């Protein structure tokens, strides 16, 4: 039984867990009669890169979309460090402020085709009401950060897959979020580009002190950059712990299956 369900009337804020950057508390979600997430709870410590691995259909994309305030849970709560209220219940300006604390990267990049690389990165800053001179400087800073300093004026469709994802990462980090969420960010990339994007994410974590949650179906991703991992199967977390421990002593059938698969890669 998750703790949040017992003390339902007491607000459980991330701030009483000082080391927690993102807290999911007994999240449930169903589409029609199909239960996708069944009371999932997860605490991600500050500065950690946490993997969520599972087969397609296991519910991991739904989970991270809820954590990223793109979807609402049917039951349960989402907390971000520094905000006392459950963030999924916020509305209006408060919801926009909460969204600025979290960046989201997608499998299909989802860049704005009508904008150049630099203009894509500028969008969250425009939305936050930055003056244009400051936007320009911040965009250049972000392009430097992801290694695309000379690509500001490139239309986004004329970037390679790896470059697109780098722009998407820069866009996600524009408003100085403390949390970065990635939904299969490297699944559409070739192995070499995957490694370089993963290394970029790790370096950004080290430099900016980010907390990162990576949803993936690739063991490679977990092995390369994650500190801890949750194995998710049919809407529940079946195993959880440090990556080193799970690699050495997998307990669940799902974790064993992923490790076996990983050996063939």
């Amino acid at each position: 039984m998750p703790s949040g369900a017992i003390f339902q009337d007491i607000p459980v804020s991330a701030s009483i867990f000082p080391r927690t950057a993102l807290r999911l508390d007994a999240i449930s979600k169903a589409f029609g009669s199909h239960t996708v997430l069944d009371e999932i709870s997860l605490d991600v410590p500050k500065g950690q890169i946490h993997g969520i691995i599972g087969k397609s259909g296991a519910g991991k994309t739904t989970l991270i979309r809820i954590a990223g305030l793109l979807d609402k849970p049917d039951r349960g709560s989402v907390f971000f460090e520094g905000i006392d209220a459950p963030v999924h219940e916020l509305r209006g300006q408060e919801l926009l402020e909460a969204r600025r604390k979290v960046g989201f990267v997608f499998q299909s990049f989802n860049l704005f085709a009508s904008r150049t690389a630099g203009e894509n990165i500028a969008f969250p800053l425009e939305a936050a009401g930055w003056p244009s001179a400051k936007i320009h400087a911040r965009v250049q800073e972000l392009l430097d950060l992801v290694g695309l300093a000379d690509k500001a004026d490139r239309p986004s469709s004329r970037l390679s897959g790896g470059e697109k994802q780098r722009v998407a990462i820069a866009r996600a980090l524009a408003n100085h979020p403390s949390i970065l969420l990635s939904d299969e960010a490297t699944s559409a990339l070739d192995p070499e580009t995957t490694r370089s994007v993963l290394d970029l994410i790790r370096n950004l974590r080290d430099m900016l002190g980010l907390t990162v949650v990576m949803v993936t179906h690739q063991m490679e991703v977990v092995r390369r950059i994650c500190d801890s991992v949750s194995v998710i199967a049919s809407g529940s977390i079946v195993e959880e712990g440090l990556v080193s421990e799970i690699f050495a002593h997998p307990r669940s059938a799902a974790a064993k299956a992923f490790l076996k698969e990983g050996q063939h890669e």
Partner: protein
Amino acid sequence: MNEALSLLAKPLGETLLMIAASTLIAGILGGLVGILLFALSNDRFAGKHRGARFAKRLADRAINMLRSFPYIILMVLVLPLSRLIVGTSLGTLAAIVPLSVAAIPFLARIVESALSEVDSGVIDAAISCAASKTRILFAILIPEALPSLVSGLTLTMISLLGYSAMAGVIGGGGLGDLAIRYGYQRFRGDVMAVAVVTIIILVELIQFSGTTIARSIRAKR
């Protein structure tokens, strides 16, 4: 032939005025209605509210009804409205009213479908950038849909050119009226030919401009 050409100037001006004015009016009003239809039906905007779904159903019925009227009937039905807006139910200005009324629902559907075609992942990305709905609509969705919107506007103008040929019925003049009254009723084959060829050239010009603009927007991406 020279006389046929000299007869052309006034009706050509009338046709151009009717098309330009009704495109402008329908562009603004139809565009707004189209944005509204999109927002009412899209889950990311108002689509999840029960009231919005009800409003959308009502708007769909109204638009389908307007679009199913044969234009010649619509023109007559709208006469009182023309009198109310331009003060008369006859003439070129009066003809702009039914043209706009016909083009608004047409263009609204085009705008609605162009906006709906934008990848939902792009909307997710814009939402995660912490932008307001209004900003997402105007700074992302409309620019993303711009090539389709330009193509749709081109289609609307060509339809309007076709409809404007019937403006003669309410004294609106125009190229269609020239073709019927001089060309057909007075057996002036040369006037008929000049009028029809002018209409063909206009269609080609509108289509060419629309295609070129849409293509140049796509080429910059």
